[in-house]
């Protein structure tokens, strides 16, 4: 039996290949994600271990367990540390944000990898930075800088050149005296690096007479743990000592935290790919079983048991699954390599070395592929086992199960899905996402169960406008096997539903942005740094306060704290000026907030708090302050907690504002105000002054960018679905060999045959796309509605985009039909007529 199954696999290469493709894609994504993230982790882990190998212990300001913002400490501490027994040498340093400005005046980087500024450390064992032979020298005086090799190369900034570098103090011109590497690498994963002499760095980062970190080298014979313990005893409270390896580990984890997003995103797409693949696999096996009805019935007639027939189909699935999963793992490795090359090209440099292929990658990849294949082939196998022996003699397939059962089952599943979805959208806790995901998946399955019910009418409707006999036949062919058509279309439905959902969600956000800006922000100008890691520093703020064309200039700060033990963001506003630029819709006047905190009303309600109650707020300084809830506010734009700038600056000294809003003085228009503000900020090239319409345009551009990215990635699901359509069509064409032969014999031209197959493909694709758009609209509407309270007020239907997706689906249909149509039109008529 098993040999029969294996033979069956190899006797049908086409079937094997097509089924395999869907599995290969899904597994490749899973494996590729693992390989890429493992590689990144292991490379950087090695790099970090390397560059910090010499550090035995690190002294740093103690930070709150909930946050990782760092502070600084006084210089005198260095002497205390140096005198601790077992300390050989120490390296003192400060760090901050340093924005390098390109010769053309544009800021370099800052939207992705950090723009690192640091002091130079002269103890080679205690520094990650080094200046290699031929790369100049380290900075030793004010006005000197060493930048990383990559930034130097990419921007034509060579040794001896002058470069502008912007810090919180403003932009200053430095002479490049050397080029630094991060360990053996030209840079650190795309970050820009500027290294200054220590006191220069202290001045630039506003840390005169202070250090943000001290690294310690132990004398021979003293192990890091002992040293760390001794250091800790010598340190005042608020400052801690950790071993070098712990510090390295924490730095590495902080560094790779950003990669977690990449990992999650790639795995999410892998999940979509696998899910779509499962539909295709199931459909392929079903068609194959249907086509082999006679063969299987014959086996039953000559004495094979049901169980044996089922085992045969499952064995075939196992063979295909094993082969495809293995191939998928290999393709995944190639895929990871490709992504890595792409990341390198995009400036996210990675240390050289081999790809990390963990056993886990192979095992999980194989498991995913095999599980999905076996699971998807279960129903078809069961169906195969139910073929009656007499079917060997009959020509018509066994009677279909009643549509009523299908309608009931499908409706039940869809209702369950809708319930999960609504519950998920209404819930506010961590289960929400799971419920929404579960609801969506079940919804897709439910709709695909129901889809055969509409396949015939919709195919007829879609096919109606198609002219001629080719159109008539295409319509008939699509409608003749509603289950097959529906299953094929369902695969495309998923991809299209997801992109439609993303489009709707994006359009709704866009529509809401305008409303929000109009309603909540009466300010004329908003001022922000283009550098993600920087803000509007006190020095920049001083400049703005002197601009005559501006009336009110109001700062906004954002900080991470922990409230009652939970990580949270607070927004800080200046009560004296905020009313002119922002309307948080608060229950008390801003002037009355004082030392207290305003809590967003929905948060207050969910948490069961009351006005007047004390909240425990823990700041990064590790200080814990009981703070009174003095009132509530409604506005959803920022954080759930609002405090005053004076409370804020007590706990976050010397920080830059995240943004500044301004109104115009009487008699000046927006353009004049903008020009004047920009003029005042010439020393801060990275800070942008935006009008409201700039602001709207910018957030729309950001949303578009995000949507573009999502759509491109979800396009993958569409591609897999195209393979599914091609798969079904190819099998259908083989199945209809004799029919096509007949058509050709009675005078149908090759073009007409191709057109017939192409139209069938387009009808199927459009059917899937229509289902997808419908599901996407419902999903989008439900999501937007449930987020209405979170500031997503407007549901927008991006008609043009949805039509574009339908056109994309039609195009997908055309592409999917290329192979099968060719095959159909090339059929030799006589062989087709004789085909059994």
């Amino acid at each position, binding site marked *: 039996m098993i040999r029969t199954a294996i033979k069956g696999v190899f006797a049908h290469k086409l079937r094997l290949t097509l089924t395999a493709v869907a599995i290969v894609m899904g597994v490749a994504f899973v494996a590729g994600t693992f390989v890429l993230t493992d590689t990144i982790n292991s490379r950087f882990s090695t790099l970090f271990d390397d560059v910090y190998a010499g550090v035995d212990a690190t002294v740093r300001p103690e930070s709150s367990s909930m946050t990782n913002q760092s502070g600084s400490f006084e210089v005198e501490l260095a002497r205390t540390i140096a005198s601790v027994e077992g300390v050989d040498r120490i390296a003192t340093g400060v760090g901050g944000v340093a924005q390098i400005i390109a010769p053309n005046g544009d800021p370099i980087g800052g939207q992705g990898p950090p723009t690192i500024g640091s002091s130079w450390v002269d103890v080679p064992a205690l520094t990650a930075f080094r200046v290699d032979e031929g790369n100049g020298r380290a900075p030793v005086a004010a006005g000197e800088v060493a930048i990383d090799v990559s930034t130097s190369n990419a921007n034509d900034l060579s040794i001896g050149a002058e470069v502008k570098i912007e810090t919180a103090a403003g932009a200053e011109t430095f002479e490049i005296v050397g080029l630094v590497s991060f360990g053996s690498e030209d840079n650190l994963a795309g970050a820009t690096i500027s290294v200054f002499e220590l006191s220069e760095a202290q001045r630039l980062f506003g840390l005169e007479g202070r250090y943000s970190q001290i690294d310690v080298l132990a004398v021979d014979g003293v192990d890091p743990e002992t040293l760390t313990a001794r250091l800790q005893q010598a340190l005042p409270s608020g400052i801690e000592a950790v071993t070098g390896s712990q510090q390295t580990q924490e730095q590495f984890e902080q560094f790779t935290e950003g990669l977690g997003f990449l990992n999650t995103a790639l795995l999410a797409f892998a999940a979509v790919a696998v899910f779509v693949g499962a539909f295709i696999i199931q459909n392929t096996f079903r068609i194959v079983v249907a086509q082999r009805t006679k063969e299987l019935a014959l086996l039953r007639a000559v004495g094979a048991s049901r169980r044996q027939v089922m085992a045969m189909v499952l064995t075939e699935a196992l063979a295909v699954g094993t082969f495809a999963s293995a191939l998928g793992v290999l393709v995944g490795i190639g895929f990871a390599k490709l992504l890595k090359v792409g990341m390198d090209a995009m400036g996210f440099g990675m240390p050289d070395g081999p790809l990390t292929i963990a056993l886990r990658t192979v095992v999980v990849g194989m498991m995913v592929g095999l599980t999905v294949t076996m699971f998807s082939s279960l129903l078809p196998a069961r169906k195969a086992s139910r073929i009656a022996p007499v079917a060997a003699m009959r020509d018509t397939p066994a009677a279909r199960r009643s549509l009523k059962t299908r309608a009931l089952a499908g409706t039940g599943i869809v209702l369950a899905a809708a319930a999960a979805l609504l519950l998920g959208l209404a819930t506010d806790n961590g289960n929400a996402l799971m419920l929404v995901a579960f609801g969506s998946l079940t919804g897709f399955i439910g709709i695909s169960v129901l889809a055969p019910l509409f396949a015939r009418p919709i195919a007829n409707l879609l096919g109606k406008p198609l002219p001629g006999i080719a159109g008539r036949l295409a319509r*008939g062919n699509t*409608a*003749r096997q509603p289950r097959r058509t529906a299953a094929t279309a369902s695969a495309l439905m998923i991809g299209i539903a997801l992109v439609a959902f993303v489009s709707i969600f994006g359009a709704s956000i866009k529509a809401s942005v305008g409303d929000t800006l109009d309603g909540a922000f009466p300010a004329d100008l908003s001022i922000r740094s283009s550098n993600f890691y920087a803000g509007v520093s006190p020095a920049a703020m001083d400049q703005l306060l002197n601009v005559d064309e501006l009336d009110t200039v109001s700062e906004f700060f954002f900080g991470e704290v922990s409230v009652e033990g939970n990580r949270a963001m607070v927004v800080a506003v200046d009560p004296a000026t905020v009313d002119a630029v922002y309307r948080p819709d608060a229950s008390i006047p801003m002037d009355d907030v004082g030392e207290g905190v305003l809590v967003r009303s929905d948060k207050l309600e969910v948490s069961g708090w009351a006005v007047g109650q004390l909240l425990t707020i823990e700041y990064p300084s590790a200080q814990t302050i009981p703070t009174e809830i003095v009132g509530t506010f409604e506005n959803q734009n920022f954080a759930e907690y609002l405090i005053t700038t004076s409370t804020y600056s007590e706990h976050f000294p010397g920080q830059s504002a995240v943004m500044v809003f301004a109104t115009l003085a009487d008699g000046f228009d927006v353009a004049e105000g903008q020009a004047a503000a920009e003029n005042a900020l010439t020393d801060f090239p990275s800070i942008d002054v935006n009008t409201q319409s700039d602001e709207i345009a910018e957030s729309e551009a950001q949303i578009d960018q995000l949507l573009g990215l999502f759509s491109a990635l979800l396009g993958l699901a569409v591609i897999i679905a195209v393979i599914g359509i091609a798969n079904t069509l190819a099998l259908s064409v083989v199945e209809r060999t004799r029919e096509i032969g007949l058509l*050709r*014999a*009675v*005078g149908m031209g090759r073009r007409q045959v191709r057109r017939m197959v192409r139209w069938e493909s387009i009808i199927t694709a459009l059917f899937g796309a229509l289902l997808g758009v419908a599901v996407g609209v419902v999903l989008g509407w439900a999501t937007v509605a449930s987020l209405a309270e979170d500031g997503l007020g407007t549901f927008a239907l991006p008609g043009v985009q949805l039509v574009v997706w339908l056109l994309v689906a039609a195009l997908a249909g055309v592409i999917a039909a290329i192979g099968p149509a060719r095959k159909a039109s090339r059929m030799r008529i006589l062989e087709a007529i004789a085909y059994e």
Partner: protein
Amino acid sequence: MALALATERNVSAARIEDAVKIYGTGDTEVRALDGVSVEFKTGLFTAIMGPSGSGKSTLLHTLAGLDNLDGGSVYIGDTELGSLNDRHLTELRRERVGFIFQAFNLIPTLTAEENILLPLLIAGDRPDQEWFDLVVDTVGLKDRLHHRPTELSGGQQQRVAAARALVSRPEIVFADEPSGNLDSKAGSELLEFMRRAVDEFGQTIVMVTHDPVAASYADRALFLADGKVVDHMWSPTAASVLERMKTLGA
């Protein structure tokens, strides 16, 4: 008008000269046609007889432009098929030739009417309603036009196929054992109809069969053996054909 065709018995509807068709090479070489020359006059019903494997279907297929020859030439009317490309051959099959196969003649997604009109639909031509009605009447399918093939009996299906073969008024109709899968009643109904098409419409028909009774409906019977025409007979009867077949060892 139909009678006008019938009077032109001396015009050649199709002819094949020195036809050679070889399958396989070396040891496995089969000469399916080994120097066949025949002419089919307009308005005649010809039966091609012969033992299984004697080359009947091959002869029919090459005549109809479904297959090409390895030697010799085929004409439909004055057109030499060997010089036609695929597009012209397709056009020829659509407009000048009709077909009835032994089975699987119909497209299951189309109604009987659409199946009958298939060659015209493919060409995008408007059907001649009078002619269509006449043909449908003759095959006795008037009340079955909107049925699908699966809703028709085997005999009805073959009559739909026959109607399709006639609807584009082809110069010649080829039929490969059209009654081979039918019981004797349905078979004789079909053959009756084919006979009427020849008599009343002046249609030219070439039919492959190995059934002497079927052959008796024809004006003339040709006998094939081992890829050669070995004999022919005018106004064949079941008995005379059977007699002849015996000597061929079928």
